[in-house]
C-alpha cells in the first residue's frame, strides 16, 4: 500500500439517504414521544431519562474520546476525530432533551416528594444532596461545563482547518488535560443524579465508572458506524486501511470487556456480601419478567459483541464493525433501560410503542445533528498536523 504525501480531500455533501433517514427517524420519534407525553406522562418521563442518558453517552463520550486522542498523542484516530467532534455537538441539544424531565421531576424521582422524605429518616439524611434546588443546579452545571468544553475543543480544531497552526494542537492538549478530570466527576455525578437516585436508598461506589464504560462504548460505536458508512461512500480520505479498522475494533473490544468487568465487579461484590440495603437493586431486576431482561443484557451487551469482535479478522472487517457498532448502540440502550425502567414498572418489564418511539427519537437526533454539522463543516480535520501520519498509520 502506498503512502500518502499530499492529503486529497474534497468536501462532498452528505448522501441523501442518511439525511432522509435521520429526518424520518426524528419526525417519527417526535410524534411518538409527544403522543407518549399526552397518554402516559410518567412512563414517558422515564423514557426521557433513558433518552437523555443515551445522548449524554454519545456526545460527552465523544468529547472524552477527542480529549483522549490529544492527551495520549494518538495518531491513528486523528483522521476520524472530526466525526467525534460532530457527534459531540449533541451536547448543545441536551438541555432541550432534558426539559420535559424537568417538568416531570416529581413523576420520576421518588425523593422529590416531601411527604416521602419526611417519613423516611434515611432519605432525610440525604436531603442536603437530594433536593430539587441542588439537583437543578447540578444539572445546569453539567450542561454548562460540557458545552463550554465542547466549544473550546472544537473551535480550535475548526480554526486549524484554515490556519494549520500547530499551536492549536498544543492548546487543545492543555484543554483536554483539564477536561478529563472534570469529565470524570461530571459524568459520575450525572449518573448518580439521573439514574442511581431513582432508587434513593441504593448506593454503589462503582456506579459512575459503570456508566462511564457505557458512554465510551456508545460514542465509540456511533463514531465507528459513521466512519464505516462514510468511508464506504468515499467521503473520507483515500487510503483508509485495515489497520485503521482494526484500531476501532480493538478499542471497541477492549471496552466491551471493560464494561463486563465493571458490571461483574459490582454484581459479585453485592451478591457476595448479601447486605439487604444493596441487594435490593439487583433483586428488583430479578423480579418477574425483569429476570429475562437481566439475562438478556449479559448476552446482548457482552457475549454477542465479545465473540463478534474476538478474532483479528473480524476487527478488520468493516462490515462486521458496522453491524457490531449498531448492535452495541442498541446494547447500551438496553443497559440504560435495565437501569432506569424497573423503578417505573416494578413487577415486570414493559416495552411498547413509547419505548420504541423514544429509541427512534434518539437515533433521529444523533443522525440529524451529525448530518447538520457535517454538511456545514469538513469531515476530516484537514489542518491537523497529525493528519498525514494518521492516514499513513500502520500497526
Amino acid at each position, binding site marked *: 500500500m502506498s503512502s500518502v504525501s499530499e492529503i486529497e480531500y474534497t468536501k462532498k455533501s452528505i448522501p441523501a439517504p442518511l439525511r432522509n433517514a435521520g429526518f424520518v427517524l426524528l419526525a417519527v420519534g417526535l410524534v411518538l414521544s409527544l403522543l407518549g407525553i399526552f397518554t402516559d406522562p410518567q412512563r414517558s418521563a422515564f423514557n426521557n431519562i433513558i433518552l437523555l442518558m443515551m445522548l449524554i453517552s454519545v456526545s460527552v463520550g465523544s468529547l472524552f474520546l477527542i480529549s483522549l486522542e490529544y492527551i495520549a498523542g494518538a495518531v491513528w484516530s486523528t483522521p476520524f476525530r472530526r466525526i467525534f467532534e460532530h457527534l459531540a455537538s449533541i451536547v448543545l441539544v441536551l438541555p432541550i432533551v432534558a426539559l420535559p424531565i424537568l417538568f416531570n421531576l416529581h413523576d420520576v424521582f421518588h425523593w422529590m416528594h416531601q411527604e416521602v422524605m419526611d417519613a423516611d429518616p434515611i432519605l432525610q439524611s440525604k436531603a442536603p444532596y437530594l433536593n430539587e434546588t441542588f439537583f437543578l443546579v447540578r444539572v445546569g452545571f453539567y450542561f454548562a461545563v460540557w458545552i463550554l468544553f465542547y466549544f473550546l475543543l472544537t473551535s480550535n480544531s475548526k480554526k486549524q482547518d484554515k490556519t494549520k497552526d500547530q*499551536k492549536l494542537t498544543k492548546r487543545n492538549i492543555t484543554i483536554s488535560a483539564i477536561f478529563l478530570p472534570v469529565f470524570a466527576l461530571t459524568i*459520575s455525578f450525572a449518573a448518580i443524579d439521573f439514574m442511581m437516585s431513582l432508587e434513593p436508598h441504593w448506593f454503589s*461506589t462503582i456506579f459512575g465508572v459503570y456508566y462511564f464504560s457505557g458512554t465510551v462504548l456508545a460514542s465509540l460505536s456511533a463514531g465507528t458506524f459513521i466512519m464505516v458508512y462514510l468511508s464506504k461512500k468515499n467521503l473520507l480520505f483515500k487510503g483508509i486501511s485495515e489497520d485503521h479498522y482494526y484500531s476501532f475494533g480493538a478499542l471497541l473490544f477492549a471496552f466491551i470487556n471493560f464494561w463486563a468487568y465493571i458490571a461483574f465487579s459490582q454484581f459479585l*461484590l453485592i451478591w457476595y456480601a448479601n447486605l439487604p*440495603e444493596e441487594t435490593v437493586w439487583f433483586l428488583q431486576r430479578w423480579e418477574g419478567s425483569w429476570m429475562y431482561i437481566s439475562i438478556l443484557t449479559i448476552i446482548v451487551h457482552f457475549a454477542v459483541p465479545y465473540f463478534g469482535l474476538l478474532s483479528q479478522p473480524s476487527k478488520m472487517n468493516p462490515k462486521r464493525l458496522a453491524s457490531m457498532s449498531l448492535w452495541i448502540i442498541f446494547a447500551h440502550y438496553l443497559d440504560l433501560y435495565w437501569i432506569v425502567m424497573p423503578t417505573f414498572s416494578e413487577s415486570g418489564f414493559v416495552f411498547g410503542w413509547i419505548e420504541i418511539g423514544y429509541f427512534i427519537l434518539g437515533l433521529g437526533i444523533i443522525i440529524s445533528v451529525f448530518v447538520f454539522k457535517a454538511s456545514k463543516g469538513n469531515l476530516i480535520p484537514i489542518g491537523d498536523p497529525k493528519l498525514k501520519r494518521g492516514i499513513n498509520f500502520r500497526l
Partner: protein
Amino acid sequence: MSVVDYTQELSVVEGKPPLRSIDELISRPLNTKPTKAYYIALTVTLSMLGIGVIGLLLSFYYGTGMWGNNNPVGWGFPIVNFVFWVGIGHAGTLISAILFLLRQKWRNGIARFAEGMTIFAVMTAGIFPAIHVGRPWLAGYLFPYPNQHSLWPNFNSPLLWDVFAVSTYFIVSFVFWYVGLIPDFAVLRDRATTKIKKTIYSVTSLGWRNSNRHWQHYEMVYLVLAGFATPLVLSVHTIVSFDFAVAVLPGWHSTIFPPYFVAGAVFSGFAMVQNVLIIIRKIFKYEHIITIDTLEKMNKIMMLTGMLVGYAYAMEFFIAWYSGNPIEQFTFVNRAFGPYAWAYWIMVSCNVLMPQLFWFRKIRRTIPVMFVIAVFVNVGMWFERFVITVTSLANDFLPSSWAYYKPTLVDGAILLGSFGFFFTWVLLFSKTLPVVSIAEIKSVIDGSQPSHGEH
C-alpha cells in the same frame, strides 16, 4: 518552551546509534567485573534480607505474638506488605504486555526491566500469605489436592482465588519474560568469549538462529502471551481487592474496589520502576535508550493513576455519606480524623497531592524531583494498604473490642527484609541478564523500520 512538531514521529531512542553499538552497550554489564559500588549495594540488600530472615525465624520460633496483630486487628503487616508487593508487580505487566498491545514503542526500552521487577515483586509478595498465619509448613493445603485428611480449601474464598491468580500470574509473567529473552540470549551466545558462557547461552537461547521463520513464530507467541497476560494482571489485583471487598466490613465492602485497586497497583508499580530505572540508566549509560521522554511518559501515567486513586478515595467518602448508613459514615470519618488520621493524611498527600506536581512539564522532566515524588508515591501506596487493612479492623462494630494497632520491631524487620529480598534479585538481575531488550530496542531505532517510501 519549544513547540513540538506534531507532523513527525519522534524516535524513542535518541540519536541514531549503530545497531552494533546496542549489542555492545547492553551486554557490557554482563561481560565486566562488578564494581565496588555493586558489592556495597549487594551487601546492603543482603543485610536487609538477613534482618528479615531473623525476624521470620523469631516469628516461627515464638509465634505470631511477636507481631503487632491483636484481637480486632487480625490482619496487620503481612497482608499490607502482600498487597503492596503484588501491586508493585503490576506496572511490569502493564508496560510489557498492555503497552505492547497498544503498540507503544516507548515501552521497548523499559519493558524487560519492568517485567523482571514484576517477577521479583510477585516472589516477594508470595512470602507473606505463606507466613501470615505463622505456620508456613501448612501452606501446602492451600492447593486443592486429595489428601488423607480429606481437607479441602474453601472454594468460596477469595483468599484461595488469590493462590490461583497469583501463581498463574507468576508463571505467565515468567514465560513471557523468558520468551522475550530468547533472541537476546542468541546475541549473547554469538558474542560469548568463554566456553562456559557459550554453553549456557546456547542452551537458554533454545537454538535461535534469527531465521525469518523463528521471528515469525516468536512474534506470534509474544503477541498471544501479551494477550494472556493482560486479563491476568487485571484479575490478580481484582482478586486481591476481593479479599477485602467481599467482606461486610465498612471500609472494605465497596464496589469500586476492583478498578481502584488495579489503578493503585499500576500507580505504585510505575513509581518503583521509575525509581530503579533512573539509577540503572545512569550507571549503565542508557540515557539515550531510556530517555527523558520515556520517563516523562511514565510520570504522566503516574499522574493519571494517582488521580484515579484520588477519584476512588473521594467517591468512597461521598458514597459513605450518601448511603445514610451511620456505621459506614463513622468508618470514613474515623479514617480521616480518628486515631489513624496521620496514616490517612500521609496516604492522601503522597498519592493525590504529590503527583499533582506532574502538571508542570519542567517537573516531569527533572530527574531528582521526579525521583523524590515517586518515592513518596510508594510510601503513600504502602500507607493506603495500611489504612484500608488496619483502620477498618481496629474500630469495628463492637466498641468494647476496639484496640490500637502497633507494629513491633519484628514486623519492621520483615518489611525491611522484603525490600532486601526484592532488591537483591534486582541487583543480581542487572548483572546477569540484558536489562534492556536488545532486539526490541533495535526495532525502534530510526531507520530500522520498513519504510513506506517516506525518506
